[in-house]
């Protein structure tokens, strides 16, 4: 599927495809529709392609005046997700969505002039784990045709790494998707990133085989250590956003992360915020042999 903006302008439906997971949005409000098309421009797909791909869910999007769904709280933006059976609820201050994953349909109410970004992020995180994919809090870079992701919470250095990666294909500084592709994993671009204007983001649906995963921490020197699988799996689980809440979902995420860590090396990366850290990464990758990754999945 290729991104195509003009072909989606004829009606009220918008089809977004991220990591080959298609979501249909039926947006009656013309302004909201235009804003969504602009925001997700490089991830829009033709209606006919969306039909072929069969959208994972179709969402009816309704715009309301002056609504607020959560009381204001200090600190970062709050997004609450609840999954009961196949019923997924996603609520932020300005978005309230309910999706029936088994019926592949849902409804979203969004305050006027507010984005649907949080809803889409949480929805895609859940849709990923239904398939063979995982969404991570991560920045991602394609360098020399190889994919690298840098997983971590706020302050770990994701955005700094994106800033220091000018000249390479920077996919995002905040949220990315990795997807199983045969015996390997593919790094997939996603339109979810911070809004810092100076970032060199490509903001496209680009792909590359995932070469390595890094757990960054800003430091005064560059230091890289390959981590054991249990530690790697625990770190990866902790960087999957929006999906905690149920035992079944947690187990599914753990199994997916265990498979990922068996196929892709995971490193702790202490880095000095200078572009030279890429040299340390190149050296670390050279030293990793396939035998250092022991195969096999998780056990109960």
């Amino acid at each position, binding site marked *: 599927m290729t991104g195509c903006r003009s072909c989606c302008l004829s009606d009220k439906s918008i089809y977004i495809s991220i990591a080959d997971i298609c979501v249909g949005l039926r947006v009656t409000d013309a302004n909201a529709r235009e804003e969504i098309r602009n925001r997700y421009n490089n991830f829009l797909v033709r209606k006919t392609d969306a039909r072929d791909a069969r959208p994972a869910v179709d969402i009816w999007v309704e715009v309301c005046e002056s609504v607020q769904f959560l009381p204001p709280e200090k600190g970062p933006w709050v997004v609450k997700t609840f999954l009961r059976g196949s019923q997924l609820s996603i609520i932020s201050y300005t978005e309230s969505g309910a999706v029936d994953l088994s019926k592949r349909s849902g409804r979203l109410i969004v305050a006027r002039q507010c984005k649907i970004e949080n809803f889409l992020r949480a929805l895609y995180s859940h849709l990923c784990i239904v398939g063979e994919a995982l969404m991570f809090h991560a920045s991602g870079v394609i360098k020399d045709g190889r994919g690298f992701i840098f997983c971590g919470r706020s302050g770990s250095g994701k955005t700094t790494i994106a800033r220091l990666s000018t000249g390479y294909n920077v996919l995002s500084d905040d949220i990315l998707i990795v997807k199983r592709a045969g015996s390997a994993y593919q790094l997939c671009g996603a339109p979810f990133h911070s809004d810092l204007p100076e970032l060199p983001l490509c903001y496209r649906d680009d792909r590359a085989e995932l070469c390595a995963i890094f757990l960054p921490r800003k430091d005064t020197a560059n230091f890289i250590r390959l981590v054991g699988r*249990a530690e790697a799996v625990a770190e990866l*689980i902790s960087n999957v956003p929006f999906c905690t809440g*149920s*035992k*079944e979902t*947690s*187990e599914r995420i*753990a199994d997916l992360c*265990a498979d990922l860590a068996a196929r892709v090396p995971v490193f702790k990366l202490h880095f000095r915020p200078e572009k030279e850290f890429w040299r340390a990464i190149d050296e670390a990758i050279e030293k990793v042999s396939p035998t250092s990754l022991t195969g096999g999945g998780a056990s109960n």
Partner: protein
Amino acid sequence: MRLSKKYPQPHSQVAARVIDGQAIIITPLSGEIRILNEVGTRIWELADGRHSAEQIVAILMSEYAVSRDEAERDVIEFIEGLAAKQILVLSEHP
């Protein structure tokens, strides 16, 4: 020890996997993730609702070169700690 007659088992809502001999415990509601060391993982595996704490101590003594005091201390600390966080629940019977 009072705890010795109890039968510990994982809370029904706790998710866990053992990776390369280390248990990873996920508490979904809080989002907390723990990795257990080798001995902790062995106690976790034995805390299946069929073994009492007393029986777990005996098994640890047979598998590791540890005294009863050491094994009891490890098992009690482990079970009490995880029970306080509602990761393990304690039953009177298997």
